[in-house]
């Protein structure tokens, strides 16, 4: 039976780990390579790096982090943030990333997803959708949540599946950093709309939120940052809890 995945995410800036509260107010909290190794040893199903300042700062540091991590961690590694082109994707994959998540570039130029999934295979193309509620719909934001594209998130999700995305990483902008739980409505609507796996992200504050993301949000995988990163829960505790709630996990 296929297991639901738990994916700790490390926000990386200039080669160091940080986690933002609503994308601002950053705290420095460690070396990403060591953190990733701790997570994979602790049973993380995948590791995710998000290079949060990639769009406007020197991003060569992330290549070095990916290179070092991929020599120590033997679970899938997803890297996102500032990925603009086929060249960027190629470079990250060559450094040892297994998947690359594309956010702004996928909105601005649909060819990036179409071409990269053809070139490298859908299995390594994750489209990251930052969505914010506006009335009774959600709109897709770009540039680390700064710009509203005005695009309907549900229609966009469907389009990205058609363009060749292998997975969707859906972040609720309203919930991110709040610790109030995933936007279940958003997750379940997108999950029902597409037939590729959906990774829920944004807002996890406790282990019940992970349960809800899978049971109610119908996500295949749940991503969380701060609850793991600041030691509130270990990955193992999270898996044991999910298991106790009848959710299939790899233990």
């Amino acid at each position: 039976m296929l297991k639901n995945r738990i994916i700790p995410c490390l926000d990386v800036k200039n080669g160091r780990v940080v986690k933002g509260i609503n994308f601002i107010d950053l705290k420095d909290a460690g070396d990403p390579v060591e953190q990733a190794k701790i997570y994979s040893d602790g049973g993380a199903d995948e590791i995710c790096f998000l290079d949060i300042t990639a769009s406007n700062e020197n991003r060569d540091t992330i290549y070095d982090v990916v290179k070092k991590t991929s020599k120590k961690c033997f679970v899938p590694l997803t890297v996102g943030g500032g990925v603009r082109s086929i060249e960027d994707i190629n470079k990250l994959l060559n450094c040892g990333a297994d998947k690359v998540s594309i956010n702004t570039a996928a909105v601005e130029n649909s060819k990036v997803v179409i071409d990269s999934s053809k070139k490298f295979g859908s299995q390594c193309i994750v489209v990251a959708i930052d969505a914010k509620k506006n009335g009774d719909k959600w709109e897709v934001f770009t540039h680390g949540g700064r710009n509203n594209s005005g695009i309907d998130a549900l229609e966009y999700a469907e389009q990205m599946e058609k363009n060749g995305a292998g997975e969707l990483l859906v972040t609720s902008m309203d919930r991110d950093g709040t610790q109030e739980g995933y936007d279940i409505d958003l997750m379940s609507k997108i999950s029902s709309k597409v037939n590729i796996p959906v990774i829920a992200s944004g807002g996890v504050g406790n282990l019940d939120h992970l349960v809800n993301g899978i049971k109610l949000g119908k996500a295949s995988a749940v991503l969380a940052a701060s609850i793991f990163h600041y030691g509130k829960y270990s990955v193992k505790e999270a898996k044991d809890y999910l298991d106790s709630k009848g959710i299939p996990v790899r233990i």
Partner: protein
Amino acid sequence: MNVTIVDYNSGNISSVINSFKEVAKDKVNIEVTSDLNKIKLADKVVLPGQGSFKSCVEALNNIDGLTDILNEFAITNKKPLLGICVGLQMFADIGYEETETKGLGWISGKVSKIDNQNGKYRLPHIGWNQINIIKESKIFKNIENNSHMYFVHSYEFIPKDTNVISATTDYSSNIVCSIEKENIFGTQFHPEKSDKVGLKIISNFIDL
């Protein structure tokens, strides 16, 4: 000993290289090459593969003489070869991803899209799934039945002779996930991404 990973522009092989180097340490030389002579002289060959069946076969054919050398290595000389993911799928006679494409024809069978039961199951089949070991295989030495492996694929290999199947995994149907036929080994899952148990499979192959 030389274990050679065939680098034929089949997509991302960094993880395969990293994991083999991690297991080999300094005891075994891990070579990454498309050089025909080096492949010919290797003790063992690893054939990775990512992307589509068609793109991988085309990439193999783009290197003059490569399929001939692989045929000689695996079929004539019967030296150990491990195919991973599309590397395994290419053992088949034919694949149906994108268009109908001829495979290496080493193990009779076809590669077709996983039946997801009209959308009941998501594709790709991504994540950790358990393997049911149905036949003893040298690469499963000290691997427990029902171990978790990391999968990511939408197509499956269906061999004609079910005797070659060493393990299956349960998804929308019973999917063939490992084969052994004499000196030819293949895994649909990614041992290089399957944590310690995956590294053990790699170690078993190196130790053959």
